[in-house]
């Protein structure tokens, strides 16, 4: 039987969840025995080359591209994981949710203390750039999510245990250390 195919992606996150995935250390060698990676920053495959079995999404949706990717991952993967606080609830990027988007753009490009170089006061409006959403949406408001792995980031052991349990059909181990957050 061919190995299950895994895809991962990072949206409005900080890549910390992916770092945490790498934190499984040498078990990554076991992991690639168990599964095959497709689209993922880990192997640098940028677009899907086939249907996948498992998708992991880090980060919520803050722009149109994020929405597009979440939907695409949902379409391409049979089982979808929400990875980490930003995907689950919006996380840090969602701190802007109480502030009108106009104000955020103004602060970022016109008024903020670090925008000195933007002398011509240009606002990003090129068609190539993804459009900014009014707020940051957790992925489960956009697509159906099958499993949630909480944490900021989720512990490496949590990601490992979850993937192995799913692939092998064994019971998921959730010891306290793996799901406590403080």
């Amino acid at each position, binding site marked *: 039987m061919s190995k299950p195919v895994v895809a991962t992606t990072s949206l409005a996150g900080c890549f910390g969840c992916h770092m945490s995935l790498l934190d499984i250390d040498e078990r990554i060698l076991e992991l690639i025995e168990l599964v095959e990676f497709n689209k993922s920053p880990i192997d640098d495959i940028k677009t899907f080359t086939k249907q996948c079995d498992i998708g992991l999404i880090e980060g919520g949706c803050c722009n*149109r591209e994020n929405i597009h990717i979440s939907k695409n991952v949902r379409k391409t993967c049979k089982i979808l994981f929400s990875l980490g606080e930003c995907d689950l609830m919006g996380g840090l990027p969602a701190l802007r949710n109480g502030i009108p*988007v*106009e104000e955020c*753009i*103004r602060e970022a490009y016109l008024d903020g203390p670090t925008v000195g170089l933007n002398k011509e006061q240009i*606002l990003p*409006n090129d068609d190539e750039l993804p*459009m900014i959403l*009014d707020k940051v949406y957790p992925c489960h408001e956009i*697509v159906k999510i099958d499993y949630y792995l909480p944490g900021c980031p989720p512990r490496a052991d949590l990601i490992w245990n979850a993937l192995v349990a799913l692939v092998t059909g064994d019971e998921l181990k959730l010891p306290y250390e793996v799901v406590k957050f403080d």
Partner: protein
Amino acid sequence: MKDKVQNIIRNYHDDRTRLMDILLDIQAEFKCIPAEAIEVLAGQLNMSKVDVEQTLSFYHFFTYEPTGEYTVYLNDSVVAKMMGSDEIARAFEDEAGTKFGSVSEDGLVGLFETSDIGMNDQEPAALINGVPFTNLTISKVKELVAGFKAGKDVNDMVGQTGDGRNSDDLIKSMVNSNCRMQKGSVLCLEYEVGSALKRAVNITREAVIETVKSSNLRGRGGAGFPAGLKWEFCRKSNGDVSYLVCNADEGEPGTFKDRVLLTEMPEQLFEGMAIAAYAIDAKEGFLYLRAEYNYLKAYLEDVLQKMRDDNLLGDKILGSEGFNFDIRIQMGGGAYVCGEESALIESMEGKRGEPRNRPPFPVQAGYHNKPTVVNNVETLSTVVKIILHGADWFRAIGTEESAGTKVLSVSGDCRKPGVYEVEYGMTVNEMLEMVDADSVQAVQVAGPSGVCIGPDKFDQKISFEQLPTGGAMIVIGKDRDLLKEVALNYMDFFIDESCSSCAPCRSLTVILKNKLLKLMNGFGTMNDIDELYDWSKYMKQANRCGLGQTAANPIMTTIDNFRPLYEALVKTDDEFVSEFDMDKAVEASCKYVDRVPNVH
């Protein structure tokens, strides 16, 4: 201003535990708590400014900005809306020339919404500068605002005073008691004021506790804890001093029976408090009165004074050596959670009304960390009759586990709203007949924290065994949109009133409400209904106090009893539907950066 504030503080002997009273006086004087006053308070009370602000920011009726010369707080709870408060709100806005949540430009009129003010049987109702105006109509609103513009005193705008003792010189309120309690029940049995206390002081403290214990009297404020046992725990706690508190916070929307007991028979309550104080050997007692009932304060003070004059309060009560007891009225500042006994105690100490962790329970460490009994108005009033007529007499009334009678606050779609005293064991059907209601879709028993039941459960008995209630009974007619008009409003209520200490109470309430809205907006799935229910279950386990533990009840009990209403909102067989609207989501940012949205 400084002088005025200093004087107010001095009136309370520079005592920081009296911060609530001080803030109430400052708010009344300046229509807000000015920044300068906060400085003075911090200095004179030897507290940090942040500590002052912690307390003041917690309560609805303390504000940073002036609330207008005439401050209108219009009730926005379920029954108020059912009785047309939205139209009244619009009339106020039109006449006063300002929107709700703001003050007119000339500073004359401030319009604000507030949670239930305890007038559900005479809605729409509002508090204007603390004075209740009930049964509001559009023409009445016009008259009122004209009065504001003419500079009239709100008390002179009351007009016809209400029934019963509402026309007393010290109340002079248009509120009606709508007291439909029958003579010959328990609380309305005629008696001579002082006779029960006399009987009590002639037996030992233990004997009083024993009588109340064997009467099986259970708390009437909601939780139903046996009153005698509570007193015994307090008496057995080691403490040089103990306190008695009467809980008259009555914040549960739809409950107003304590208002009527306070208006029509306050002597009975205070006598009950004296008996309880005798039993637990307390020298000081407090009536924690919700801010909304401030209009009763002068009258209640007067009743207390008369009782002192008759030696029913004060030193050596009724000649009993060593029995000294007096009662002070402590006003609240507008916060439902302060009805929770440990939050109430925090508030009495001048702090934010945040519930404490338990144990220790108040009977072990309550007010100023001393053993404290907190009982509801009705519980303490009932004690008088138990002492007079005996435990056996009392136990014979009601059902096995629910001895005695219950005072109900009935409102909503019925012809005879008001306050009734019924024997425990009455069915909901019998009650509906009594209050003259037909075409009933549902009854909200015990307010938002209680249960919403449909006709298939109307044969259930009002009792601790089957349908416990603190007293609120809201009748909801067939034509009402139960989810929108009731469940959704109650979720907003809990969101507003949560003290926000516990994460689920603070956040899950909002998440649940949004999911309910998702369903109402036509984006829901069957899965959403199941999730609403499953998530609601966590509220019970994961919150500190009763507010959070019951805050999902408006949703859970309507799913339990009215699931078809939810299912009718689901328009698809899909497992998942997103509410996300790309056009809307990118509109603002594109406009700001001058870009044509291209979402396809």
